[in-house]
């Protein structure tokens, strides 16, 4: 990738356009009524030390697409990435972030998503690398029947410091959404997950749930989780749950007594813990296997 080019889109589909609007602002648009069968891969310039990108994604009416953003590098970088996604009526977008940056990299990632009537956005976020990660995701359902789903899988180890803010806001009726965040803290990793569901007084009929589960696997790791609910009307189904545990002692014992080594037992249990998120990309076996390998 040339130094002047900050991001690259891997797609030959004529209905998908990536345009550079200014020095560090790009617009990706998909025309109305298009079903994009192959995932759209977006990669970033991993040679520049400092990277500052604004990306606007416009998803047209009745569009169905999967977009994968990959943050990978071999040399340390400081990346500021701000994306805004506008999902038009009846669209269905699966937006996947795969982040496996080098141990010294820093990433500040802000993603704002607006969803119109009956549109669905499924945001799947795999955060596995980088020293200092600050990721903010704000999804807003503007009209009726908006569906906002988020899956986050993050792992911190070594001296990594990962901080995630995830919020779903329902401003109109009959919204739906599930936020499922899973974190693994190892070695001296510091992990913080803030989740929030907000249903305004116009959000009657909304069904939203937030779940944050974390594994704390080392005595020097630290974990903080704040799942919030802000509910301003009564005709809702809303809830949240959070748990912080280690690997289950009984499960460890059960598998060990079947002759499985401690290392393999832990691997199996962690794989079981992350399976829920990875099943959501079962149609992308290469990416799925890559993530399994990293974890």
């Amino acid at each position: 990738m040339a130094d002047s080019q900050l991001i690259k889109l891997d797609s030959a589909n004529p209905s998908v356009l990536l345009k550079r609007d200014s020095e560090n602002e790009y617009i990706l648009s998909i025309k109305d009524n298009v079903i994009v069968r192959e995932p759209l891969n977006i990669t970033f310039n991993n040679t520049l030390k400092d990277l500052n990108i604004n990306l606007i994604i416009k998803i047209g009416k009745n569009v169905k697409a999967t977009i994968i953003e990959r943050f990978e590098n071999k040399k340390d970088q400081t990346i500021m990435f701000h994306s805004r996604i506008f999902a038009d009526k009846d669209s269905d977008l699966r937006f996947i972030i795969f982040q496996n940056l080098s141990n010294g990299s820093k990433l500040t990632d802000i993603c704002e998503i607006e969803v119109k009537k009956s549109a669905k956005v499924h945001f799947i976020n795999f955060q596995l690398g980088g020293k200092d990660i600050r990721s903010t995701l704000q999804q807003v359902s503007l009209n009726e029947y908006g569906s906002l789903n988020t899956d986050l899988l993050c792992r911190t180890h070594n001296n990594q410091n990962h901080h995630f803010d995830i919020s779903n806001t329902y401003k109109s009726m009959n919204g739906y959404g599930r936020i499922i965040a899973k974190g693994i803290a190892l070695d001296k990793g510091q992990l913080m997950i803030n989740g929030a569901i907000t249903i305004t007084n116009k959000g009657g009929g909304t069904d939203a749930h937030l779940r944050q589960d974390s594994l704390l696997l080392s005595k020097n790791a630290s974990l903080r989780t704040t799942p919030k609910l802000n509910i301003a009307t009564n005709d809702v189904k809303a809830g949240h749950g959070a748990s912080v545990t280690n690997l289950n002692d009984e499960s460890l014992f059960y598998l060990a007594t079947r002759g499985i080594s401690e290392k393999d037992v832990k691997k199996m249990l962690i794989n079981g813990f992350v399976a829920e998120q990875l099943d959501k990309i079962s149609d992308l076996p290469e990416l799925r296997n890559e993530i399994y390998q990293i974890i």
Partner: protein
Amino acid sequence: MRGNYVIQVIRTSENPLYNRNFLKADGLRWISIDIDRCQPKSSEVKRNQSILLIMNPTQQKPSAQHKPIFAKLTRDVFDHKNNADYIKKFRKGLTRELVEYISKDKNEPDWMLALRLRSFDYFNTLPLPEFGPELYSLHFDEICFFAKAADKKGGFKTWEDVPKEIKYTFERLGIPEAERKVLAGVGAQYESEAIYHSIEKELSDKGVIFTDLDIALHKYPELVKKYFMKCVPPNDHKFAALHGAVWSGGTFLYIPKGVKVEKPLQSYFRMNAMNMGQFEHTLIIIEDGAEGHYIEGCSAPKYGSHALHAGCVEIFVGKNAKFRYSSVENWSRDTYNLNTKRAIIEKNSVIEWVGGNMGSGVTMLYPCSILKGDGSKADHLGIAFANEGQIQHTGAKVYHIGKNTSSRVVMKSISKGGGISVYRGLLRVAKTAENAISQVECDALILDSISASDTIPDIKVDNETATVNHEARVGRLNEEDIFYLTSRGIPKEQAEAMIVNGFINPVVRELPLEYAVEMNRLIEMEMENSVG
């Protein structure tokens, strides 16, 4: 199941699915129980049948043996005003001179005056909290921080000696009757000072001390000095500082080693005058192996002008001890209730917080347990009802420090008529807290489309052997449940109140029977739109 139940039979069921099954729907509980195990028995109940019940104590017909003390509470009782002119002798506003006057009036030792003045300085420098409801509308110069209605140090020895108007207030609240029937001792505070204190002789012979803290400061100075504001230091936050500067009255409870107090002790705090401030301090010391139960109640009449309550409760639970602190807060809607409650729990001990917050316009109340000793436990059970014009910010804070500690938090909140209820929780598991276990459940009922509920827990874990679970649910009354009851001839408002009583049952059933009735009566009054 533990606890006493006052019950009303709704229907019997031939269906084995209902009998002996524990069903859960939308966070509410339907219970099935053999009637033979219920006390007191109602003559309407058929014997030897398993039946489906909803707890609704106010529906029970009182029998000759049992007349609930607090069943007849009405809004008039709480809004009763004593128009005596004692308040004219006391000024509004907080000054250094007032702090010195309070200390001089009580003839306090130098260390207490120094603590008050230090607290006053902290109050002037610490900011208002950055979270929670807006407090800028609270004008400190409009509050009367100290007023005496009777000027009797330590209170009167008998109810007959208490001035007529004050005695009448407490009689209507049911306090003397409760003292006769169910309590081991009673303290009553009116404005800034205690007006009555009593304890059963059997307990005082065992070394139990239950008295007004102003008196305890003189009678047991070393004990008070050792513990006073050590759990909640004056620089903890702005309202702890305010409390440290102007505290007056309150309770001193000391239970010596190995003594088990079977019946509860109660203190009741009553504000009367307009723009009054009450700053009672409750200091509780439970020595090793001791057990006790203490209940606090409070109320104030409504004037439409701000009042302030910034009390403080400090509890020290020794080793292998057990203590329950229950409270029913029912301040008027113009009161700011900014209370601080905290306990330090030593090895193998247990603390139980059981609370109901029904009153006040703005509440910020987060009882805190510090699980310092290995094997210590804390249970926090609470109800908050936010009606029109109310903001209830309640919750629980737990710090796991020792090994093998456990905590459980069960919070139920109800919002109605535009009220806002907020659960704010804090859980910290320190590096030293091996094998800590914590379970938090928050359920919120929003009864109409104009009310709101927030849940804001903050969980930080620094030990990999901890197991922490938190869950919360928000919803409305189940339409099917309401239809079921109304189709049996029960008016809709009553059906809703019954379901709400069932919703709060897990907390209410932990109270002694009489106080469970009081809690249910207060909830019923809120559901009746009896706006205070």
